[in-house]
């Protein structure tokens, strides 16, 4: 008799479940079931479990389900995990229906001011994440997932991409560091992923490896939508190679920096002042801009200090960054406000663009406001400012 388990157990668990499957030679399927939503959804849960038994051809098993209000997609992922841990050769996938609200696509230069990290193996955070209106949600397979649960997180994230409505937020997944991360791709590429965050990138070669595997999977699954990459630079070597990394694939939409690992790599610690990372951040902005993609700053980790967050975003904006990582939904609004062009900036930009249009229509080579001449880069910046205003709307 072999036994496998999956999911989470304990009085503090919510919106998740625990599954135990014990295989036996005879006796058919025996289901033991405890649920806090037994009255409301007990029948539906039993039906799902029995359907999955049929799908995975389980004939003689004892099944224990302890349910703490797991949504159907979570229950399915947990059960499938238990099946696959019992029988590692099982390759079939029990997929929840693809929610038709999840068919939206993205564009390469989408606004990416805020990206909200969601731990891959914690499905309770998923259904409401999009309500807080981050520009992107990141389902994280990397640092927030304990090594023994990497396989669970793959299934939870796959099912979430199919079933959970993220309300228009860009759909991102952070895969694991290569080579492990290459294995993650088959769980996400077929399910309308928009942006893949690739952690701890040090060489252009790594991006090419991911790109090749993504293209293989796209062809295999006949995926038509664009899938973009956001390499995360988290080491001294990565910083040195930033431009090569940024230009390694046409599918790169941004370069991001991760400072915890970077400061460890150069043998120092993060300070609020950030002198130790100035070189890296400035290099990264420069490399990204040279490659024509976005530069995205690290996460801000003190969830209680909104003033410091605002300061940090304004500083990042000053350095040329266009986005910041969030680890709590309450940070999103502050990040958006801080990245937004100010009234003064907008008014000035409108004047400059109006003068530019005027000059163009009159066939003049020189743009001027009053007696002041306006240089071409100033016009470009004004146009950019108004583009951002347009996107925020």
């Amino acid at each position, binding site marked *: 008799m072999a036994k496998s388990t999956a999911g989470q157990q304990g009085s503090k668990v*919510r919106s998740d479940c625990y599954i135990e499957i014990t295989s036996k030679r005879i006796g058919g399927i025996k289901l033991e079931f405890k649920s806090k939503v*037994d*009255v*409301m959804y*007990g029948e539906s849960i039993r039906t799902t479990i029995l359907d999955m038994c049929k799908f995975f051809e389980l004939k003689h098993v004892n099944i224990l389900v302890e349910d703490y*209000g*797991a949504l159907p997609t979570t229950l399915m992922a947990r059960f499938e995990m238990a099946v696959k841990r019992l029988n590692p050769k099982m390759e079939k996938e029990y997929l929840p229906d693809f929610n038709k609200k999840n068919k939206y696509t993205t564009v390469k230069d989408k606004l990416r001011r805020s990206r909200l990290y969601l731990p891959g193996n914690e499905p*309770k955070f998923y259904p*409401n994440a999009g309500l807080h209106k981050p520009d992107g949600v990141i389902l994280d397979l990397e640092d927030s997932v304990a090594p023994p649960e990497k396989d669970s997180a793959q299934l939870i994230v796959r099912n979430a991409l199919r079933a959970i409505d993220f309300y228009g937020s860009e759909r991102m997944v952070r895969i694991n560091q290569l080579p492990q991360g290459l294995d993650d791709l088959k769980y996400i590429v077929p399910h309308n992923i928009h942006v893949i965050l690739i952690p701890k990138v040090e060489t252009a070669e790594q991006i090419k490896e991911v790109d090749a595997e993504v293209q293989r999977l796209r062809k295999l699954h006949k995926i038509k939508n664009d899938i973009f990459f956001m390499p995360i630079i988290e080491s001294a070597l990565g910083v040195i190679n930033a431009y090569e990394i940024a230009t390694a694939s046409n599918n790169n939409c941004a370069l991001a920096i991760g400072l915890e690992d970077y400061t460890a790599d150069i043998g120092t610690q993060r300070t609020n002042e950030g002198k130790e990372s100035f070189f890296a951040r400035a290099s990264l902005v420069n490399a990204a801009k040279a490659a024509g993609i976005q530069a995205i700053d690290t996460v801000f980790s003190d969830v209680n200090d909104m003033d410091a967050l605002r300061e940090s975003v304004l500083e990042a904006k000053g350095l040329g960054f266009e986005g910041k990582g969030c680890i709590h*939904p309450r940070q999103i609004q502050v990040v958006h406000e801080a990245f937004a062009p100010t009234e003064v900036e907008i008014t000035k930009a409108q004047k400059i663009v109006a003068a530019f249009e005027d000059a163009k229509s009159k066939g003049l080579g020189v743009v001027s406001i009053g007696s002041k001449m306006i240089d071409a880069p100033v016009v470009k910046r004004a146009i950019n400012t108004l583009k951002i205003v347009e996107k925020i709307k």
Partner: protein
Amino acid sequence: MKLVKNAAGRLVPTEINGKKVIPFKGVNKYKPTGNKYGAPIKSCSDYPLDGNKVAKNLCEALKKAGLKNGMTISTHHHLRNGDILTNILFDTINSMGVKNIRWFPSASFPVHEHLIQYLEDGTIHHIEGSMNGPLGKYTSEGKMKGTGVLRSHGGRYQSIQDGDVHVNIAVIAAPTADPLGNATGDRGKSACGLLGFALADSEYADNVIVVTDNLIPFPCSPWQIQGNNVDHVVEVDSLGDPAKIVSGTTQVTKSPDRLLIAEYVADFLEHSGILKDGFSFQAGAGGTNLAFALYLKEKMIKKNIKARFIRGGSTKYLVEMLEEDLTDYILDGQTFDLEGVRSMRENSGHLNTSPFTSYNFHGKGNFASMIDAVVLGATEVDINFNANVVTHSDGYLLHGIGGWQNCMFGKTVILAIPSFRDRIPVIVDEVTTLVAPGELVDVIVTERGIAINPKRKDLLKAVEGSGLPIKTIKEIYKEVNEICGGKPAKPKVNKDEVVAIIKWVDGTVIDSVFKVEK
């Protein structure tokens, strides 16, 4: 048990615990005639002229009060989950061999799980008050001998005043009292704030016993309870656990989803035009409500708006608003933390209220209907805006009504609730138990959007173009069902067995709670 359909279409009994009851007739439809209940006349010559009514102990006081089988004993919940006195009271009654008591608390708490043994052995016949947690489970499974009755705080006052409930002995926990029986809750080691819930009992009960763990020489000032209504005074070592009577600090929720709901409520008040100088609002002490008050406060400061009064369970957050001159008054119905208690003692703008002044439906007006915006919770709301606050979707009794029903008469009633909890939908097709008719519920604020009752055309118009996520309640209902995996099944209940009835604010029966079949 014979059941009839009341005006809300719910099945209710016409007789409960051997007494006739009136089915709900509609909002503002039932108007009783006649006179209020009159308490027996007493003569001061029968009481000690030196004003010393101190009895040896609780047992002696109960004996002097003539305790016998089948009596109605009332207690009050101002000690909340720190209440030890009620448990000691029933230990004493049990040791005296008295049976079949009707327990008439203003609310019960998890600490009262201790009393299940007395429901089992017949000391207590049934409960008329609230049946929370373990008591709710016990009642829902049909184990209580009599049928439970749930009333709002205002309904409790009304039931005593109208003579629906005749209280034989009221036992009032008093954090400070004098030998005459003057009592206050705003000081003493068990300080809890105010004693308003005990007002009706002190006025109308046959016998009133004040129990204190801080007996001081006459006069006890202020006297929230008047000694002239009191028969006996008992001194005990401790009324309860101070840490559970009031919290040291009340916590605002950290849940991002609840904060989002709170923010939407504050935004709604702003965009609907309710937030203006001289306005009033009520917010409870639940995490979401506290957060709402904080968001509202920011807006008030920004727009230079001052409230005339705030009704509440008072907390340090409301106290700060009073002290920062953002409101003229706090009308306090229940004090939740130490700062609230301190403010009540020190600040003349921090007023004591009672279920009589705030809520009583059979009075010449009450404060509840004068409030511009009331923010409440609920266990369920249905697509017709009907709301439930007493049972869970699995059919079990979970909470008391508190002032919730009474607050339904506020000018704009807002229910701030998550659209589902874990996998349990809160927006449903039909409430498990009807506690407030949908015609009184104006706005539902969830993390998935704000639904305005279609009859509030003024509000719908006011928030047009505001950018608020306005949806219909059916849209939210549909979305929740999609997330939770279909429409939830209804609990299996035995429609022949009513375990408790829900009274409306006028004393009529608005719904029944049925025995849960396991």
